[in-house]
């Protein structure tokens, strides 16, 4: 081969190597970002489970004091049961919301029972449940942030070319109901 031939071969090989490297980078990136969304969901799931585990404790503590609030207590127990038996993501989210509402009612009613509010066990449970509630909110935020990075990746060039061949589609965001929405939303 002539020197020119060698040069052309070298350039072609170089271009192929660069293209392969770029492809590997983007394919891995798409997989990593997509896995991050799954991981974000499992974070939410862990917190939902932790909360469901605390509920029987709470019911036990509250029962003795709130004799006239059987309905509210029952609501919590039922919401927890639904939470435990829920299968899919959608179902879990729905049951999680019901449990949140039911717990809110219990804590609002507890305001009328000074003895209960002074109970050390109750105070600790309340702090733990509030902590979990905010962790669920943060986990949801991480879920949506991860979904945004992923969706941006697969909808912009060159990510969308790879996403197409990998049969990857946009992932849905975690819907936030009106009352759960944080008071202040900032963007920058």
């Amino acid at each position: 081969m002539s020197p020119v031939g060698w040069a052309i071969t070298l350039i072609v090989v170089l271009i192929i190597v660069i293209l392969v490297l770029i492809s590997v980078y983007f394919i891995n990136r798409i997989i990593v970002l997509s896995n991050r969304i799954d991981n974000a969901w499992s974070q939410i799931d862990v917190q939902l489970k932790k909360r469901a585990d605390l509920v029987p404790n709470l019911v036990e503590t509250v029962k003795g004091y709130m004799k006239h609030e059987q309905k509210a207590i029952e609501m919590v127990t039922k919401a927890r049961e639904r939470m435990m038996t829920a299968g899919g993501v959608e179902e879990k989210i729905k049951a999680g919301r019901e449990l949140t509402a039911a717990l809110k009612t219990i804590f609002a009613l507890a305001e009328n029972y000074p003895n209960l509010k002074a109970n050390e066990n109750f105070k600790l449970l309340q702090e733990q449940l509030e902590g979990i509630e905010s962790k669920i909110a943060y986990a949801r935020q991480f879920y949506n942030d991860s979904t945004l990075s992923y969706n941006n990746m697969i909808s912009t060039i060159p990510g969308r070319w790879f996403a197409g061949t990998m049969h990857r589609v946009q992932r849905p965001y975690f819907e936030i109901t009106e009352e759960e929405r944080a008071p202040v939303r900032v963007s920058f």
Partner: protein
Amino acid sequence: MEKISFFDQIARNKRNSILLSIFIIALVVALVYTIAYLLLPGFAIFFLVFAAAIMVAHAYTSYNYGDRIVLKATSAKPADPIEHVYLINTVEGLSIAAGIPPPKVYVVDDDEINAFACGKDPKHASIAVTTGALKNLNRTELEGVVGHEISHIANYDIRFMTLVAVLVGLVAILSYMLLRSYRVTKGEKGKAGLLIFAGFLLAIFAPIVSRLVQAMISRRREFSADAGSAQLTRYPEGLASALEKILKINRGKMKVSESISHLFISDPNRSPLDELFATHPPLEKRIKILKAM
């Protein structure tokens, strides 16, 4: 809203950590060689090898155990799972938001409002908050402060900053020793005057240069960690109001070494030289930027 990409910053922090380690190893080996040459010229080479070995071991130790050294230097105690349950919950919540494992939580007994994070990576990280912060800050303010530290962890600032803390302390000690040895040999004449002069310069300038490096690297990081906190809490006013309280309450007289001051959210040692050596940007400026977000 676009998530701030930490990738560039993470890569930069990892690269800087390596560069810094090499730089400090070279600097200290030069210092030790100078000392040895002044005191025992015959054994200078032996000391050179010895110092190099020690310094590599030292760099390895400060990479792996730097967080323990820093925590010990501030007498931070592990947070009590009952008494500080609220702080622990806040840290865990924000680490979930940042997608990192929950760091270990410590409390420093001090009346000033302050906090810092250290460690080599998000898997081996610690957050410490002062009792003054727990007492004076409300929920959203504490979240802002913790968010700032969590974002230092998530973008690997802590690896670089912890290394700097341990190494700056070491350079300060060594140049002090060099200055002492210079005084010891001062009387003897004809002992490679140039080298003595170089050693003298090194002893004076090494701490100044390392302090300057410490100041430069950490000022920019504070702004980006503030932005990261706003990103995590979705509420920049929380951190802004915490910084306002710091401005009002703190006097910058915490009992911590100057070599770890850049780790803190607000400068724990204020001094008249801050114009040049300040490890933190002015609080007023940070508050203004946060409020404009």
